[in-house]
C-alpha cells in the first residue's frame, strides 16, 4: 500500500497538518488502510476535495484517505432522477451528468468542487435550506465501511440511527463507499432571480423570512462594514425555478455549454489570474471600498434570468480567490440563530467586530429550517457566514473575539457548522449539540469504531 507523507491544508490556507496520504481506488483499499492503521497505531480520516474551512479533513501525524480517485457515477436513470455514485465524485461531475437530461441536484453548496462524501459528512446546505432541507434529506441510500470492517447499507428506514448519524458525522463513524441520491426535475436551464437592496439588519432578516415562502432559493449579502442605522444592510437574491412552459426552449437553455462558467471575463481575460488583482484589496480599507461599491451597485431593484450553475456556484466564479487573502489565509465564522434572536445576536457580533477593528470582509446570510440529523447545525432561523483574513498580528485578538462571538451565539440558542468554524472549542460544541446528542453520538462511535481508528483534527478538537 503506497503512502506518501504530505502536508495538507484547509481550504482557506490558514492551517496545515502532515499526514500519510493513501489514495484508495477500490473498496478493498479502504479495508487495507484500516489494517495498516491498526498495525502502525495510527488514526485515519477521509478527505474529499479539502474544501472545509477548518480541520475536518486534516489528521496531523495520521493517515488521510484521499477519496478523489473513487469518483465514478455508477448509475444514472434519467427517467426517475435517481443517481448512484462513489464518494469521491464531485458536485461538478454530478450536475454536469444530470443537468442536460433535465435534472438538478436538489441541494448544492456554493462551490461545485466538493465531493459527495464530503457533502454527506458535513450534511451541507444550500440557498434553499428553508425549503429542501440539507443534502442528507435527498439521500435514498448509502453504503459505508466501518472501522470494524463491517460493510453497512443505510437508508432512512434501514439502519436509521446510523443513517442519521453518519450523515452529519464528519467521517467520524465510517467511510462512505457509495451514495444513491434523488435529483430534482427542471423545466428550464434558467432561474428567475430578483435582486433587491435592504437597508438594515431588521429589514434584511424580514426580507429573508418573508421572501422564502415565495421562492426556491434565497440568499443575502451583508455589508459587514456598515454601522449605525445601516448596520446589516445588504442585498437579497431570491430565485425561482421556471415552471413548465415558462421557458420557450428548455432544451437549449439546459445544454451544458449554456451552463458552464466561462473561464474568461470580457471574453479575453483569464479568470485564473483574477485573484492576483484582488490581493491589493485584501485589507480593511480595500474590502471596505469593495463593500461600499457593492452596496451602491445593489441599490437598483431588478429581476433577471440566470443559469443554474452561475447562480449557485458563486465561489467558483473567481478561481483560487482564497489565495488573494495572502500568506495567513482566511477563516469563516458561520453562526446559525433562531429567527427570534438572530437580530440581537448579530447586531452585537457585527458591532464588536467593527469596534475591535477586525471587520469581516464578506458576510452572507441564509434562511434555514431544522433537520433530523444527529449532529445538526440547522435551526428554524438564519445563518450568517463571515470571512476573516488571518495574519500573524491579528490571530490572537481575532481568536479572543471569536470566543466572545461563540458566547453570544450560545446565549441566543444558536448553533455552529463544522464545515466552516475552526475555532469552536469542545465545550461550546457539546453545549449546542446538547448532552443527549453527544451521548448518542459517543455510543454510536463506540459501536462503529471500538478501537478509535477514525479521528480527524476536528474530532480531536470537539470530541477528543
Amino acid at each position, binding site marked *: 500500500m503506497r503512502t506518501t507523507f504530505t502536508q495538507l491544508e484547509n481550504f482557506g490556507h490558514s492551517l496545515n497538518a*502532515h499526514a500519510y496520504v493513501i489514495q484508495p481506488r477500490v473498496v478493498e483499499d479502504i479495508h487495507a488502510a484500516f489494517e495498516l492503521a491498526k498495525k502502525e497505531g*495510527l488514526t485515519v480520516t477521509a478527505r474529499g476535495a479539502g474544501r472545509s474551512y477548518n480541520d475536518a479533513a486534516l489528521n496531523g501525524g495520521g493517515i488521510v484517505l484521499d477519496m478523489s480517485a473513487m469518483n465514478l457515477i455508477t448509475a444514472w436513470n434519467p427517467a426517475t432522477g435517481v443517481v448512484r455514485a462513489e464518494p469521491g465524485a464531485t458536485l461538478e461531475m454530478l450536475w454536469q451528468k444530470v443537468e442536460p437530461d433535465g435534472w438538478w441536484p436538489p441541494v448544492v453548496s456554493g462551490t461545485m468542487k466538493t465531493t459527495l462524501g464530503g457533502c454527506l459528512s458535513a450534511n451541507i446546505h444550500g440557498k434553499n435550506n428553508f425549503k429542501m432541507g440539507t443534502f442528507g434529506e435527498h439521500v435514498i441510500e448509502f453504503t459505508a465501511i466501518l472501522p470494524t470492517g463491517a460493510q453497512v447499507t443505510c437508508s432512512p428506514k434501514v439502519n436509521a440511527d446510523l443513517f442519521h448519524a453518519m450523515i452529519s458525522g464528519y467521517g467520524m463513524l465510517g467511510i462512505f463507499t457509495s451514495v444513491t441520491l434523488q435529483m430534482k426535475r427542471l423545466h428550464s436551464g434558467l432561474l428567475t432571480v430578483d435582486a433587491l437592496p435592504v437597508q438594515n439588519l431588521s429589514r434584511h432578516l424580514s426580507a429573508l423570512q418573508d421572501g422564502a415562502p415565495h421562492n426556491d432559493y434565497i440568499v443575502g449579502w451583508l455589508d459587514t462594514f456598515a454601522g449605525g442605522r445601516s448596520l446589516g444592510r445588504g442585498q437579497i437574491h431570491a430565485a425561482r425555478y421556471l415552471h413548465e412552459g415558462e421557458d420557450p426552449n428548455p432544451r437549449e437553455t439546459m445544454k451544458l455549454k449554456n451552463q458552464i462558467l466561462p473561464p474568461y471575463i470580457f471574453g479575453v481575460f483569464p479568470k485564473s489570474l483574477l485573484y492576483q488583482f484582488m490581493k491589493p484589496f485584501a485589507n480593511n480599507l480595500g474590502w471596505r471600498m469593495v463593500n461600499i461599491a457593492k452596496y451602491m451597485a445593489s441599490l437598483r431593484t431588478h429581476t433577471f434570468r440566470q443559469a443554474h450553475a452561475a447562480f449557485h456556484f458563486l465561489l467558483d466564479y473567481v478561481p483560487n480567490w482564497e489565495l488573494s487573502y495572502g500568506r495567513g489565509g482566511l*477563516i469563516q465564522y458561520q453562526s446559525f440563530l433562531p429567527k427570534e434572536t438572530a437580530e440581537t445576536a448579530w447586531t452585537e457580533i457585527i458591532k464588536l467586530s467593527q469596534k475591535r477593528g477586525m471587520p469581516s470582509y464578506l458576510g452572507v446570510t441564509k434562511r434555514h429550517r431544522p433537520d433530523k440529523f444527529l449532529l445538526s447545525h440547522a435551526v428554524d432561523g438564519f445563518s450568517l457566514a463571515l470571512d476573516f483574513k*488571518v495574519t500573524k498580528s491579528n*490571530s490572537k485578538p*481575532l*481568536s479572543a473575539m471569536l470566543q466572545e462571538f461563540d458566547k453570544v451565539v450560545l446565549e441566543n440558542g444558536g448553533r455552529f457548522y463544522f464545515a466552516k468554524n*475552526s475555532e469552536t472549542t469542545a465545550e461550546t460544541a457539546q453545549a449546542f449539540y446538547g448532552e443527549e446528542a453527544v451521548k448518542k453520538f459517543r455510543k454510536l462511535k463506540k459501536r462503529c469504531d471500538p478501537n478509535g481508528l477514525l479521528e480527524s*483534527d476536528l474530532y480531536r478538537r470537539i470530541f477528543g
Partner: protein
Amino acid sequence: MPDTQKPLPATPLNPRRRAIVLGASVGLGAALSKKLIQEGCVVALVARQKDKLDALCSELNQTTGETRALAYVHDVSKYQEAPTLLKNIVAEIGGLDAFIFVAGVNYPPGGMDKYNFENDRKMVEINLIGAMAWLSPVAEMFQNAKTGQIVGIGSVAGDRGRVGNPGYNTSKAGLHTYLEALRNRLTRHGVNVLTVKPGFMKTEMLNAAQGGTPMAIEPEQAANEIYKAMLKRKQTIYTPFFWSYIMMVIRHIPSFIFRKLSF
C-alpha cells in the same frame, strides 16, 4: 496538568508548530525546548534521563498552562529504535515542522599524548551516527512533504582538527558535512537545513570536558540566537556571533603553523 494528555489541536488562529528536540533534558537542548515552547510550539523532548526529562516537561507545561511539552525516553545509540519512535512522536504531536538534533557527548582524551579509542568511538556513535540514524528518516519525511526544517548542533570544534580532542573534532566535522549534504539535497524540496556551530556554553558538557571557561555564554542566549536563525531560515550560524570572526581566522591558519600550536 497530567503529562500524558495530548496537546490541543492547532487551529488557524492558534497555530502550533510541531518540533522534536533530541537531547532535550539538559543544557542547550533544554534551553531550546523552553524557547520553542514559549513561542507556541508543541515540542517532543527526547532524552536518555527520564527523571530530568519528566521534571522539565512538567515544569514547562505548568508555566504555559497546557500540554506543549511531551517527554520521550530514548538512547540515541539505539539506532534501530529511531524510525518507530519518530513515527509515534509525529502521530502524537500531529505532524512535524522542525527537527533539532542537539544530542552530543564530549570525552577529551586528557592530554596531547593520550589516545582513547573507546571514547572516540562513543563520540562518533552519538554525535554523528546517532544524528544520521534520526536525520535519514526525518529527511525522507520532509522531502516527501516538501516542507520542514532540520537543525543540527555542530561545534566550532568541527572546523579544524586540533591536537586536544581528535575524536570530538571528527564527529562534529562529520556532522557538518552530513548536514551540508542534506541541505544540498533538500533545499530544492523546500526544506531548510541549519547547521549551528556554538562556541563555549555554560553546560554540563563543557564543565566535564574542561571546567570553567572564559567567553562561555548561557545556553539560553544560544537558544535565542538559534531560534532567530530558524525563523530566518539560515544555513550556518556561529553562536555567539563573534565566533564567526575567531573561526574565520582559525580556519585560515596554514597547516605549517597550526600543527605547532598547542590548542
